[in-house]
């Protein structure tokens, strides 16, 4: 388990790096950093709240390292300050509410597109050069090279505005109260399906290409020839000999893909007016609500690091060589 412990330390360092960027950015800008951070509040902020906010972000009297430690202290105690747009709500509450929707959207989209992309990639590699392979390869090129914002806008225009099949905003019917009823959950599903499918369209191609290329590189290996020579069925050779080993590098590419998923879900939510992190962030950017903008970097980084750790753990489970290392 030394491997996982090492990864954990590394993730902690990466998180501190993100916090450091947050700490230094306002201080590197020309002008008074306090003025920059809280300028959008105007005169509406009560003096004692401003004092508390200054303390949270490390604007204390004293040398820089003391300010830095104060800031790290407030972050690690879970205090990200208060939103200026939604004052007096704490940033963690504003972002936490939104994170539920984003993780739900991202999670389903990642699982669906990973499964679908891997499956398409296996079949395309197995039938390399066939019409099916050409369609998958060319389709993947098209899907991965179109920006997520463009895909989202075209989907929302076609299925939302023109055909009117799906709603073009919100995560559920605003007339319904959030509760575990069939009506409400159905509404959530109905509102979520279009953004989810858009994200899948953005992601599936990448997974398919990675899997196809891994498979093709493996199909020339001796143990595949051996398995064929033993007279095993094609399905067995394809799934249990080739795909199983080709899956390993694909899983590690999943970790890198999570960044794309995050970025993709940000813009998808803005286009679909979906109440996730992307939308909150968009509103925060328009209002120059810096505590929220900074907070999202920390929350996104944490989400990404957790996802990476999950991938690490599954990597250890999939690759027995790592257990001994």
């Amino acid at each position, binding site marked *: 388990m030394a491997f996982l412990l090492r990864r954990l330390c*590394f993730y902690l360092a990466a998180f501190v790096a993100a916090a450091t960027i947050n700490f230094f950015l306002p201080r590197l800008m020309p002008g008074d950093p306090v003025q920059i951070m809280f300028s959008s509040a105007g005169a509406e902020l009560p003096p004692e709240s401003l004092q508390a906010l200054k303390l949270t972000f490390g604007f204390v009297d004293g040398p820089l390292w003391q300010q830095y430690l104060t800031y790290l202290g407030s972050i690690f105690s879970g205090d990200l300050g208060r939103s200026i747009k939604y004052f007096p709500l704490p940033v963690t509450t504003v972002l936490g509410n939104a994170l539920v929707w984003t993780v739900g959207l991202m999670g389903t989209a990642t699982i669906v597109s990973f499964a679908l992309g891997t499956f398409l990639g296996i079949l395309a590699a197995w039938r390399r*050069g066939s019409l099916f*392979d050409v369609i998958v390869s060319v389709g993947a090129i098209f899907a991965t090279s179109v920006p997520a914002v463009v895909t989202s806008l*075209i989907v929302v*225009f076609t299925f939302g505005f023109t055909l009117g099949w799906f709603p073009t905003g919100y995560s559920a019917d605003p007339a319904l109260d959030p509760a575990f009823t069939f009506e409400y959950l159905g509404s959530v599903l109905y509102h979520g399906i279009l953004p989810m499918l858009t994200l899948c369209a953005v992601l599936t191609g990448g997974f398919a290409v990675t899997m196809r290329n891994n498979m093709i590189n493996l199909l020339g290996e001796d143990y595949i020839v051996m398995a064929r020579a033993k007279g095993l069925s094609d399905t067995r050779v394809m799934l249990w000999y080739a795909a199983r080993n080709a899956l390993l590098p694909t899983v590690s590419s999943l970790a890198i893909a999570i960044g794309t998923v*995050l970025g993709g879900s940000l*813009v998808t939510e803005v286009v679909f007016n979906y109440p996730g992190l992307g939308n909150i*962030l968009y509103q925060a950017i328009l209002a120059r609500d810096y505590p929220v903008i900074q907070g999202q970097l920390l929350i996104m980084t944490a989400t990404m*690091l957790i996802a990476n750790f999950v991938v690490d753990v599954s990597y250890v489970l999939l690759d027995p060589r790592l257990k001994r290392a």
Partner: protein
Amino acid sequence: MKTSSFPLIHNRKAMVGALIVAFILAVAIAAPLLTSYDPSARVGRPHQAPSLEHWLGTTRIGQDVFARLVYGARTSLAVGFGAGLLITIVGTALGIIAGYRGGKIDEIISFFTNMVLVVPNLPLLLVLAAFIGQASPWVIALILGCTSWAWGARVTRAETLSVKQKDYVKSAEMMGEPRWRIMTFEIFPNLISIVGINFIGSVIFAIITQATLEFLGLGDPKVVSWGTMLYAAQKASALSVGAWWDILTPCFALAFLGIGLSLLNFAVDEIANPRLRTGNRLGRWSALIRSGEGRL
């Protein structure tokens, strides 16, 4: 398959991709010849549908969409290629140095590379751009160059590790060539396909990311680019008022450019790694049947 000293010419994907990119480049250069309208000026009534007078209609404040499209291509291409070049230079240099020098230097560079890889890119760019304020296209290109080199550095390092074991590098070391010379003249030329893939990939990334940042309202709205076109159209609720030409024009332009560059990228990848080729389908059928490959 016939070998050629110019493999790109015989690859159909590469040809189509190059044609698309060249076409957009030509449009960008010839922008003043293609339209007589000023892309920022109000030249018509708001949200007019496409007509002979305004080929792609007008925006919410009466600007000509076609003029904005052709002039915007200049900004999007310039930022894309500028930032792409910057990302590639930084990534390649760090990758080769880390891979060739090894030891402590490698550890430090690899640590930073991995760290940049796990901090999500778009949220980081959003924070940077938000503090800079209405970022001009060149500022966006610069921050993209500073934050997005990690993937290239990692791939280049891995390739360098295998190239540095080759005999010609060993013999250059024996002859006492200086390190910088080995890195630039022995190793770099042998990484050229990786560098090419990295460059085109970075250009695609830069174009997409610039458009995304501007769409989210972090660009300078006075600049004419495909990203600010999207931003203005979304802000004017172009879709819900039925002005599809306003928002779909930059959409299709971005998609077209993205596809062109990707085709080029996949072609370079296939040339560098021949196993990945789908090849000429008709010519391949006989080979498939012979080898028993592709049965299912």
